[in-house]
């Protein structure tokens, strides 16, 4: 794998995380439990889609085959996506949506903070732009996890159930492969394995406050960030997200 191929893969990972999670989040648009949450989720999704345009736009330039962000988003099939499995999991109930958001935001904030010091100026400027939004997302999802976890018996049990369901998808964030190794040696991105302690401390603090119990089993589902095996959910998501471009290729308005 050349350095250019590794950088392309790294950028796909960044952009696919925000694209797929952004699409998931947008599924709440118009159907969230209360108006304020509906607006908040739509705005969060919007931030993610905006960040996706930067990441995938740069990915297309690095690849050098004339693909722009739209083409990468709408013309690839499931096996070419490089998002963490966590991002493609279904929205479930509102509790599951917020729990996934928090588990992702916590990692995203730590990872983006490292990218601010990236040796690649394009990467560091996208990270700089995203970091403010990411900090705001984390503030909101952490607060909501605490409010619901330490809420009623019903909300508590739903949040614990969501945490138990999603926790096996956390480990993938900290797995490293040759793409990561190439990014580390070029000073472009951090070693994912080195971020686990900081993540665990952050998550533990919030979940303690939310009176929720972090599962002891660290078994990790994997195959999203390297594209080896996505869950069955990604194909269904793409069916809905890519429908228009599949039926009317390169349709525009």
């Amino acid at each position: 794998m050349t350095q250019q191929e590794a950088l392309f893969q790294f950028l796909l990972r960044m952009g696919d995380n925000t694209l797929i999670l952004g699409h998931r989040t947008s599924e709440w648009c118009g159907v969230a439990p209360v108006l304020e949450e509906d607006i908040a989720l739509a705005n969060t999704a919007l931030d993610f889609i905006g960040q996706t345009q930067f990441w995938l736009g740069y990915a297309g330039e690095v690849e050098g085959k004339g693909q722009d962000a739209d083409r990468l988003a709408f013309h690839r099939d499931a096996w070419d996506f490089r998002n963490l499995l966590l991002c493609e999991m279904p929205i479930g109930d509102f509790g599951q949506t917020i729990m996934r958001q928090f588990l992702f935001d916590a990692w995203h904030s730590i990872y983006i903070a490292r990218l601010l010091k990236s040796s690649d100026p394009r990467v560091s400027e996208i990270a700089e732009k995203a970091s403010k939004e990411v900090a705001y997302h984390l503030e909101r999802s952490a607060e909501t996890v605490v409010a619901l976890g330490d809420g009623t018996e019903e909300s508590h049990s739903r949040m614990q159930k969501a945490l138990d369901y999603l926790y096996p998808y956390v480990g993938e964030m900290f797995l490293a492969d040759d793409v990561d190794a190439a990014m580390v040696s070029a000073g472009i991105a951090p070693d994912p394995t080195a971020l686990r302690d900081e993540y665990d401390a952050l998550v533990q603090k919030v979940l303690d406050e939310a009176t929720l119990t972090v599962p002891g089993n660290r078994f990790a589902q994997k195959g999203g960030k390297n594209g080896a095996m996505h869950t069955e959910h990604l194909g269904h998501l793409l069916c809905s997200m890519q429908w228009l471009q599949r039926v009317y290729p390169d349709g525009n308005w």
Partner: protein
Amino acid sequence: MDQPTVKQVWEWLDAVPDPEIPVISLVDLGIIRDVAWEEDTLTVTVTPTYSGCPATSIINLDIETALRDHGIKKVELKRQLSPAWTTDWLTDRGKARLEEYGIAPPQPAGGPERCPHCGSKNVQKVSQFGSTPCKAHWRCTDCLEPFDYFKCI
């Protein structure tokens, strides 16, 4: 036609309203980072407020239209991400206009200083997000009116 001065162009841009908050101009919002002539091409550097702000493309269109209306033929818009936009770049005039319009201006403390309707300091947050990505939703516990607060970033 003589090339208009950069100062003149800034004045023209100062008359282009923000599409979502039309009481302030694009210059008030602090998103125009640079105006420069490169031979016969006018380059305007714009930074987005939020990554996914849907107004970005409208803003670019409005800038181009305004400059073309003033007779400038070659306009190039550049997107600049770094340094990232901050509410510190809102002009004082912009902040005053926001408040007059009913939007509490950003405060370093992280919340509105007072209700933009009645001036009461008894305010509480309803939601971290409001009607656009750049605003949060608050309410006044004295006059009971809801209002938008321009997030401080």
